[in-house]
């Protein structure tokens, strides 16, 4: 009886686990291996090469003409920029998303449903198209630029192809990822706690700071992870709204697997991206587990 | 075995969980339920009533023991092979089917022709007077109406045994009383064995031919409502069913039982030692001080509408209730002393 139930469960799970392992687990493993190899003369992977950390070293150092290893800041800068962009976006999403989530939770049932739908829709609509919409708004011959040029006396304004444009695009892309987990916390919130805080002499602002925010912390953490991680690997936004000087990790990976055709190096960059992501998630998990027992 | 019984349960045990965390929910339970009997499992929350019912229905498998239905050993049979139907506590009416489709569900599964299914579903609905609602969805019915549909659905395939898990607990008091009467009539009409679960002792006493009182996974006492009420064999049973007075006492070697701080009552058959005497409040009487087995102080009297309830304090500090149906009986003053008369035939002796 027990036996057959377990077998049935396994059979039902097999397709899902099979697909995920074969099409996600195996490729990632393969990529880890390839990141230790070298590219072949024909721009493919040299499978015969003995594995080494060359690609990882190349992220930081390069050989100069005399064969000495010198520091190469190109990729370091891109790493730093990616992390910074992701952090700034996360912060922007938090600042914009928290009030929305809080306000939504206070609405009537119908109001909450409508808002939920309004926030969910961008979450599911085409990322490419939504970034393209910003391209139209911010472009040089658009009316936004024209209006700003009238108002701004110090020379022409350039709205596109800079870090700010990328930050706007990323915030726009991932804001729902912040609002939804925050909302799900506030929805279950016990509002009598605020009553208690007010009763104990707190002002609304202080009640917000001392009661609401600490209790919303799990939602803030979840939302921040949901924004930070995809930002780190963003490709479309920097590709459309950014310029040559605003490349992020995603652009490097795409370039290595595309025009530059250095797959092992691209694989190494991808692995580093995964590693950063894992580190952030582990840090969050550790921090949460240290907070949990009380 | 004989076919005389609808359900025979022999030394059935059931535990949940494994190893260290295993909890024994049923412990060596044996019951034989007769045909056309209205049999009730009564007990406090968590005593294993639902589990026993689910074992009969086949939703759980027993760890040990056998379950027979009309003589056939069905201990290991799946629910769909048992001639038994259940009325669920939450009704579990299929929300995507109409009332009629719900009631016809089992008939269809039994492969009856479409016409026959419709006819018998109609009959079953008629039995609970719900034919007017045949095309509605369960969500469009009130709680009481859903209750009837659940009954009709379980009765439609004419099971040998109907299992009912607190079917009335979701209804308000008035509706519950009305449904109790209907249930009883239905059972008589349909001629089906009912196994009924409740933790409402009054409901159990009103409806049942026999009651089994459960506690902690065991059946403590089983019998007709009257004997359960009047002759509880366990302190727990006495306490659980209705109001009862429990008095600490000592059985004497020469027969009779001595009350703490009082006289001796002539009850026979008790093994010497500490015992508990039990007596229902309506069986005890107040008499003049000194005329009873023991004197007590009247603490409080309350008018109940059809009777008076007196609360007394015994010499050892214990309290004692008397229910006086005769409203014209002389009433002593509050704080006054009275004598307590305990008729020997109304006293139940329980080994402490």
């Amino acid at each position: 009886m027990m036996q057959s139930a377990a077998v049935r469960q396994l059979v039902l799970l097999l397709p899902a686990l099979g697909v995920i392992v074969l099409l996600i687990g195996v490729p990632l493993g393969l990529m880890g291996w390839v990141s230790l190899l070298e590219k072949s003369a024909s721009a493919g992977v040299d499978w015969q090469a003995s594995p080494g950390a060359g690609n990882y070293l190349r992220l930081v150092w390069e050989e100069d003409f005399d064969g000495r290893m010198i520091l190469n800041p190109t990729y370091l800068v891109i790493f730093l920029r990616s992390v910074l962009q992701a952090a700034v976006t996360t912060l922007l999403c938090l600042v914009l998303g928290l009030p929305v989530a809080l306000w939504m939770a206070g609405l009537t049932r119908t109001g909450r449903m409508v808002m939920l739908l309004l926030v969910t829709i961008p979450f599911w609509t085409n990322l490419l198209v939504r970034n393209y919409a910003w391209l139209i708004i911010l472009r040089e011959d658009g009316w936004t630029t024209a209006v700003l040029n009238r108002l701004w006396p110090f020379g022409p304004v350039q709205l596109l192809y800079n870090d700010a444009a990328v930050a706007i695009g990323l915030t726009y892309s991932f804001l729902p990822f912040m609002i939804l987990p925050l909302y799900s916390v506030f929805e279950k919130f016990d509002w009598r706690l605020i009553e208690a805080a007010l009763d104990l002499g707190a002002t609304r602002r202080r009640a917000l700071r001392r009661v609401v925010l600490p209790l919303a912390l799990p939602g803030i953490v979840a939302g921040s992870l949901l924004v930070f991680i995809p930002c780190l690997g963003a490709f479309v936004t920097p590709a459309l709204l950014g310029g040559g000087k605003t490349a992020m990790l995603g652009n490097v990976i795409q370039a290595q697997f595309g025009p530059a055709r250095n797959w092992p190096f691209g694989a190494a960059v991808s692995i580093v991206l995964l590693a950063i992501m894992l580190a952030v998630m582990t840090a969050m998990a550790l921090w949460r587990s240290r907070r949990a027992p009380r | 075995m004989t076919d005389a019984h609808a359900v025979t349960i022999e030394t059935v045990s059931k535990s949940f969980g494994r190893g260290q965390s295993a909890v024994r929910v049923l412990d060596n339970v044996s019951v034989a339920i007769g045909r056309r009997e209205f049999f009730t499992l009564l007990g406090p929350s968590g005593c294993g009533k639902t589990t026993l019912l689910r074992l009969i229905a086949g939703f759980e498998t027993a760890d040990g023991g056998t379950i027979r239905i009309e003589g056939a050993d069905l201990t290991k049979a799946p629910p769909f092979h048992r001639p038994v139907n259940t009325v669920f506590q939450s009704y579990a009416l299929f929300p995507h089917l109409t009332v009629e489709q719900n009631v016809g569900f089992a008939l269809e599964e039994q492969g009856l022709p479409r016409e026959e299914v419709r006819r018998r579903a109609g009959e079953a609905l008629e039995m609970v007077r719900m034919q007017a609602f045949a095309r509605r969805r369960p969500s469009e019915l009130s709680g009481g109406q859903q209750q009837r549909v659940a009954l009709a659905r379980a009765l439609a395939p004419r099971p040998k045994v109907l299992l009912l898990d607190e079917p009335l607990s979701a209804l308000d008091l008035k509706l519950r009383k009305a449904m109790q009467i209907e249930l009883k009539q239905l059972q008589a009409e349909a001629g089906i064995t009912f196994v009924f679960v409740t933790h409402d002792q009054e409901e159990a006493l009103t409806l049942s031919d026999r009651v089994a009182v459960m506690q902690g996974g065991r059946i403590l006492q089983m019998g007709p409502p009257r004997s359960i009420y009047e002759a509880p064999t366990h302190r727990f049973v006495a306490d659980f069913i209705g109001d009862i007075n429990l008095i600490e006492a000592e059985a004497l070697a020469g027969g009779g039982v001595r009350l703490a701080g009082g006289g001796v009552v002539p009850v026979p058959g008790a093994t010497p030692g500490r015992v508990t005497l039990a007596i229902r409040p309506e069986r005890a009487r107040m008499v003049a001080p000194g005329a009873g087995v023991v004197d007590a102080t009247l603490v409080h009297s309350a008018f109940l509408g059809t009777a008076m309830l007196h609360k007394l304090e015994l010499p050892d500090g214990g309290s004692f209730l008397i229910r006086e149906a005769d409203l014209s009986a002389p009433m002593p003053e509050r704080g006054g002393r009275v004598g307590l008369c305990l008729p020997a035939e109304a006293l139940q002796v329980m080994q402490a």
Partner: protein
Amino acid sequence: MNLRRFPVMREISIAVLVFLYVPVIVLTVYSFNANRTATVWTHASFDWYLRILANPSIRAATWNSIVLAGTSATAATLIALLAALATRRAFPGRDTTETLLRLPLILPEIVVAVATLLLFVSLGVSLGLGAMIAAHTAFCIPFAYLPIRARLDGMSGSYEEAAQDLYADRFRTFRRVTMPLLWPGVMAGFTLAFVTSLDDFLTSFFLSGPGTTTLPVYIFSAIRAGITPEINAISTVMLVISILLVSLSFFLGQLRR
């Protein structure tokens, strides 16, 4: 005094809604602009929509997108349905299984996309529709799984017990009770998987072979070549389709249990 109201929350929220929707609305408005230059508004017209209808590469890309999304979403939904049924009851390793099933949601898409490219190329699998279907099926699984699982979690097991009690065996119980009750969740899951696949750009970008461009990949290369009103029109079409499908799945999810 409403305890749930805080000062300025409403104003910020409305500003955020404006921020979320104005770009999309601007895009839609532009797609109806008869003038080729974006700065000048001449008058409303459907010209660009007619133009994209007539464009053979857009038609081919649309067809590819639909085939891709339809196939991957169907496969992902079937797989997810089985998995959801299996993870309904607790068993040792359920948490690990659930994490695995959610993996595509957590991992950066670009990394998975290039890794899959690497695998297919080194195995000699030719790129194109087949490769895309395989990859899309994998990342659509969680999108189909979560709504089905949510529906199952909200479904009392007593309906199935009642069915078995009324003589339906396991298969008949599944067909007559489990499946009909689960159906809105399955449809919601399918819709979300379909939208996700339809909207996907990155994975298709790396795995589409010659001649099998999808709509998003086509739009991306068109944007790279310069903004045109046709892009506005086709983008608007994509937006409308997504919004319709997501609203549909939202209402399916809200359907009374």
